């Protein structure tokens, strides 16, 4: 068969499968990400059918997926929201980082994967999935709840922290000497700071480059600028994803609104391809051997996220039930964890990191989705009420 024909057949079959799985995920009310990962695991390396012809197609698609994922994340936030969250949730963000990054780092060191892998795994366990959690809050009708602004502020801070963390990680995984490593980390942080400053201060000028109401030039322009900056950022070791995130932040007003409207379908397509590709390149057999550490890590870090949420909500003066809701809502990890694992594995750091991260994300998303509903259950509300009554009496 002709190479291109085979590519069409493989890619088409896979996309069709993803669509069916997406519907299934919707029907049972959980995120489709774990399904895409599982589908990828089932095929590709170590799966039933290796996908040869379409490997390159999926690889390129997955890179665009990461870029769009981050660009749209940047588009979601305005400068005032970033600074507002930085002011109001600083303490919560710090608690979040410490409690959740340390277990990951500790496990990597325990498994003997070395310090660079420890930094990577720390990132994997630290960052909750903004996408999964925002959708969860919406589905459960909790946008009006009093604990919600705190949860969202923690997510914003994590996303902002990623703008600095990812370039540091990409500098580390290149594996330079300590001195050279320090220099490239310093350059990366400086570049991010400069771009962030320009984006926040002169974002309206950048937005003027694009016509807000002409969808085709807007789509092409924003996509073009995003890919261009992402590529340049990667060239100076500042991770393409971060470049895309910063472009997203720089755009504001109607341009940002309309750009996110035209880019969202593209993001959905390519982000899904990204998750499937990560599964494709991960060996399913290794996932089984990594299942136990992944499970242990998930249990520990769901508890640490619970503590983070309780702390955040308590500081905002929210009652006991609300504290539980905030804690469990933060549990799912998702897109960033996979981005980080992909970055580390791609550079040849601890190849077992990929199956570990896959298992970990699968467990936290599924468990998190169910745990988030627990505080709404009648028995849970009753038991909280009883405990409160006991404490009062």
């Amino acid at each position: 068969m002709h190479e291109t024909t085979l590519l069409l057949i493989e890619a088409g079959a896979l996309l069709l499968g993803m669509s069916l799985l997406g519907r299934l995920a919707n029907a049972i009310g959980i995120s489709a990400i774990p399904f895409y990962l599982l589908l990828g695991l089932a095929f590709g390396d170590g799966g039933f059918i290796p996908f040869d012809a379409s490997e390159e197609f999926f690889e390129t698609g997955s890179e665009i997926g990461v870029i769009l994922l981050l660009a749209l994340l940047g588009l979601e936030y305005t400068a005032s929201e970033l600074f507002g969250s930085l002011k109001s949730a600083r303490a919560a963000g710090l608690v979040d980082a410490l409690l959740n990054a340390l277990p990951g780092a500790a496990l990597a060191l325990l498994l003997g994967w070395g310090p660079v892998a420890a930094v990577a795994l720390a990132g994997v366990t630290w960052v909750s999935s903004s996408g999964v959690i925002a959708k969860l809050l919406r589905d459960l009708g909790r946008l009006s709840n009093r604990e919600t602004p705190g949860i969202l502020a923690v997510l914003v801070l994590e996303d902002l922290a990623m703008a600095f963390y990812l370039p540091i990680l990409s500098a580390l995984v290149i594996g330079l000497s300590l001195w050279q490593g320090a220099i490239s980390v310093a350059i990366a942080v400086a570049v991010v700071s400069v771009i962030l400053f320009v984006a926040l201060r002169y974002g309206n000028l950048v937005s003027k480059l694009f016509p807000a109401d002409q969808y085709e030039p807007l789509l092409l322009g924003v996509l073009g600028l995003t890919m261009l900056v992402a590529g340049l950022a990667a060239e100076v070791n500042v991770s393409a994803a971060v470049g895309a995130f910063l472009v997203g932040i720089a755009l504001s007003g109607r341009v940002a609104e309309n750009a996110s409207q035209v880019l969202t379908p593209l993001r959905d397509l390519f982000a899904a391809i990204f998750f499937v590709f990560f599964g494709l390149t991960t060996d399913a057999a290794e996932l089984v051997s990594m299942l136990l550490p992944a499970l242990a890590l998930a249990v520990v870090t769901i508890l640490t996220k619970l503590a983070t949420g309780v702390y955040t909500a308590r500081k905002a003066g929210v009652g006991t039930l609300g504290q539980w809701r905030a804690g469990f809502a933060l549990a799912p990890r998702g897109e960033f964890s996979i981005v980080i694992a992909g970055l580390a594995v791609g550079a040849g750091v601890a190849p077992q990191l990929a199956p570990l991260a896959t298992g970990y994300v699968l467990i936290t998303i599924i468990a998190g989705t169910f745990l988030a509903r627990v505080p709404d259950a009648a028995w849970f509300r009753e038991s909280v009420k009883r405990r409160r009554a006991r404490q009062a009496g």
Partner: protein
Amino acid sequence: MGIRIEKVDLPGIGVRHDLVTEGGRRISVVSHRDGERDLGVFDEDDPDACRNSVPLNDEEAAALADVLGASVMLSRLTSLSDETAGLYTEQIALPTDSPYLNRTLGDTKARTRTHASIVAIVRDGSVIPSPTPAERLRAGDVIVVVGTREGLDGVSRLLANGPD
């Protein structure tokens, strides 16, 4: 007592406005970036949680605001007539044979002639607050007037018979 409305940012989603009533109930409106609103009513047992939320589109939200706003205005007017001696509110049904039927409010020159103000028109069950002089009077309109007893009687006469 002044009414406090608290504004809370919801990064990535929009803003939320909270109102706590005198009875201690919390009502909130989440305004999404795309103009969608969620009207939330909070749980009495668990004041942090939204018990029920009603999604509203732009037009529905505006209509609801109109109804709420108008009733506030009318109830304020009623309380005004209780408290302030000599100032009354009256709802006058437009007589079916009024000379001003299908003419504009400005044509009546009600304020100049009677020193009473027309503050609202109730039409088809909805309220037109602060109608402009260009507003055309229709059959079945109920006109809400504020003024002295004499002034109100004057408006009544004016609408029924035209200028003396």
